């Protein structure tokens, strides 16, 4: 049998040592009446057969043409060293670092990851990761609900619609009063938002760049929130953070976001990486693991999981969160990615994405009938309005060898002609020219 080391002799000797006559006796505690009603599974296969079968399943995906899909999940180049170093079995096959003596590698890497996230966001403290950007936003809202004893949450219309849906699923039974502003592509609707910040509001949620790629400065909203003791939660893009005013500078209380683009492959949407960073005052309200620096008995610097008293294995139902297993390996990859690209490399990557996106925007909006939807300045993604259904356009262009972007009707059926176009450093000028040529030809 695959991966089971026992020989027949081993098995017999061990059963004997246990005083058992047969392997079935091991399951004597399970009443006969509970034996499986069915067990229709195929026979086991050889590694060669399985590797071949899955290579077959992957084959179609390997033919995917150049793609301008984004919407929160981005096709960034992953340096080979990320794969190579993160897949060392000491990292990959370890458990949550409960025993610090055997886990300094994971623990120090998490601490360094937390530091990287703090430096990107300009915040004081970050946790070891959450599942994804959406669950990170949910956990941020919970902090606000718990902290403020208020139950209204105001969400700007530029926040990722799937994140909003996820948060609402998770919070369904928590008695939250949601005030979600209508979707809109440009900067946050100041008037509407400001009007909603008052003493009953637990939090305001904004996103920068927003779902449509637009860049904003939420400092004014932060000031208003501070005035009313409302928490400002800002969802951010990690690449954009190398260029934009940080949540720290903006005055946000909690920064969250989707970190997949930091060295984690798209992988059909998972695993991805939720990150969270917050002001010092909120540290003890943060969910999830936290690695902290301390000293050992001999005075050596070392790292441990800390503030575990917040967690479910101690506090059970009173824990700040039920999150336990998180995305540690994705965080390790993100830390590797951030280290390898570094201060200059990440910024240059962000700038390249931005410049190519501007070029793409100029090329596409020059085509007759295409309208600007996301106003400048945007980061590396923008929405445009086509003269026809965007889903049909994407389908027609896929047949010609380019995935034009995300039809926004997937999120907002009221705008069937809108297309969201993301440009990463992997999409060359040539790819963009190809997209423009095909789109022009099609329309």
């Amino acid at each position, binding site marked *: 049998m695959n991966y089971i080391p026992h020989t027949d002799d081993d098995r017999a000797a061990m059963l004997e040592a246990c005083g058992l006559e047969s392997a079935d006796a091991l399951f004597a505690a399970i009443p006969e009446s509970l034996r499986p009603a069915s067990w229709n599974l195929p026979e086991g296969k050889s590694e060669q057969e399985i590797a071949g079968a899955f290579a077959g399943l992957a084959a179609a995906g390997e033919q995917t043409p150049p793609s301008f899909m984004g919407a929160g999940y981005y096709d960034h180049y992953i340096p080979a060293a990320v794969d190579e170093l993160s897949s060392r079995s000491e990292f990959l096959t370890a458990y949550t670092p409960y025993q610090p003596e055997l886990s300094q590698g994971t623990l120090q890497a998490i601490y360094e990851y937390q530091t990287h996230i703090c430096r990107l966001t300009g915040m004081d403290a970050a946790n070891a990761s959450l599942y994804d950007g959406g669950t990170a936003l949910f956990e941020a809202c919970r902090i606000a609900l718990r902290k403020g004893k208020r139950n209204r949450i105001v969400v700007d219309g530029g926040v990722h619609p799937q994140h909003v849906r996820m948060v609402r699923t998770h919070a369904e039974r928590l008695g939250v009063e949601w005030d979600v502003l209508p979707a809109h592509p440009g900067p946050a609707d100041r008037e509407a938002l400001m009007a909603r910040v008052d003493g009953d509001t637990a939090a305001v949620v904004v996103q920068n760049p927003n779902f449509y790629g637009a860049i904003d400065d939420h400092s004014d909203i932060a000031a208003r929130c501070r005035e009313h003791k409302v928490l400002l939660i800002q969802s951010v893009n990690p690449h954009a953070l190398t260029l934009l005013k940080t949540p720290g500078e903006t005055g946000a209380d909690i920064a969250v976001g989707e970190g997949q683009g930091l060295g984690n492959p*798209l992988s059909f949407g998972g695993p991805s990486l939720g990150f969270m960073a917050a002001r010092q005052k909120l540290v003890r309200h943060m969910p999830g693991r936290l690695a902290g620096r301390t000293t050992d008995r001999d005075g050596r610097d070392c790292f441990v999981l800390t503030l575990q008293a917040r967690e479910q294995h101690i*506090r059970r139902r009173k824990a700040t969160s039920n999150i336990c297993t998180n995305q540690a390996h*994705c965080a390790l990859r993100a830390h590797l990615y951030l280290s390898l*690209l570094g201060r200059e490399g990440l910024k240059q990557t962000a700038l*390249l994405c931005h410049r190519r996106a501007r070029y793409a925007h100029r090329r596409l909006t020059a085509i007759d009938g295409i309208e600007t939807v996301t106003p400048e*300045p945007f980061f590396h993604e923008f929405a445009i309005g086509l003269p026809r259904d965007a889903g049909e356009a994407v389908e027609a262009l896929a047949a010609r060898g380019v995935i034009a972007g995300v039809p926004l009707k997937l999120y907002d059926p009221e705008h069937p002609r809108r297309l969201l176009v993301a440009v990463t450093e992997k999409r060359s000028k040539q790819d963009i020219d190809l997209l423009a040529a095909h789109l022009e030809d099609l329309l």
Partner: protein
Amino acid sequence: MNLIFDKCRRGARGVNPPPCDVPDEPAIPDSLRRAEDAHLCELSEPEIARHFHELSTRNFGVDSGFYPLGSCTMKYNAKVLEAIARRPGFAGLHPLLAKVAGGGPYAQGALEVLASLEERLCEITGMGAYTLQPLAGAHGELTGMLLVAAYHHARGDAKRTEVLIPDESHGTNPSSAATAGLEVVSIPTDPSTGMLDLAALKQHLSERTAAVMLTNPNTLGIFHAHIREVVACAHEQGALVYYDGANLNAVLGRFRPGDAGIDVVHVNLHKTFGTPHGGGGPGAGPVGVNGRLEPFLPGPRPVRCGDGQIRLEDAGGKSIGPVAPFYGQFGVCLKALAYIELLGGDGLRAVSEAAVLNANYLRQALKDDYELPFDHPCMHEFVLSASRQAANGVHATDIAKGLIEAGIHPPTVYFPLIVEEAMMFEPTETENRPTLDRFIDVMRALARRAKEDPGSLQAAPRNTAVCRPDETGAARRPDLCSA
């Protein structure tokens, strides 16, 4: 060792992006820009490789040695699974390809993975339908609780807000129920059997009960033989039963929660189906339900069509809504499916058989040297108590540190909470007899040392890069980020 940030030198460069090939200049007004560059790492690739290499040498994984961490199922992670998940046809796939006409063909293989895994999980657990969205075990629990609440709510039975949970359960169970907005009632364990106290359960069941939530075998490694009665009592009272699949590795092909009438199940793919734990994730916690709960599942879900194609079907109006951005932890699901196909039906049965055999073999060999709070044959794991050693000043944590000194990862300690000085061992099926025999020798030697030289154990481990970090200090003055 030094932090990576302490090694940085201003101006050192790692990996660069390609040069710019477009004429457009950046157009972000200064007012929207950050004041100064983020102080990210500044090192060359060779220096970074050395740093992470060194970090890895300060870590212990399943390939490093025996890792009998109870309730975590630290089995061998087959190398071929990683090779499969790295394939660009899976790793490079944008999730929205499956949602646009014209992009779908590229995603057919990935959708086949999702559809097949749902089918396999249904068969393995006897449930009717699955959502693969939940992103970890605890997230599965939370999703399950949301399903339970939605079910009662849809029936106009909104007063059902209590969840009955055995006191030996994982902490995530009550925490997940609370996160979902439900109330937790703790049910005691029968001290004579190590099983859920049925009488106590009956006493707490009421028209306020939303669900009973249990793990079987439980965290003591004991199988609730009366599970049908538990289910019957709950159902009789209008409550649902939730099965935490954390310990599924014990009963593959021997027991299916669906057959016992369980309503909701979550499965930890990373525990049972051989995917690596990654130092704390990603895991995956698919949730299975029977027919009456299926309408409440999150969407979209893959559906096989008449033409052999698979398409995504959006959830209906009763759905609790999405709990993940897309289809769950696809990469983990992929590895789990490949594992299931590799082992097949017989192989999965053999897994449980060897896992249970290994646990009983250890339990049998160690029960004279350590206190055994529940002396029944166990399933895939068992709990010992260091209470005898504690009398001599050697606590479970000291035994753990002694194991570290011997190059073995410790068991889970101080859990379950209902056992004093608990040590919870789960050897898994991928450990060979010589490893178990050596472990027995080491554990016996530690028991002797606890008697004869307790101080030396309190000082353990003496051969590691760090020894007994100051956890209290760490929590009192949290240092979570390097200045």
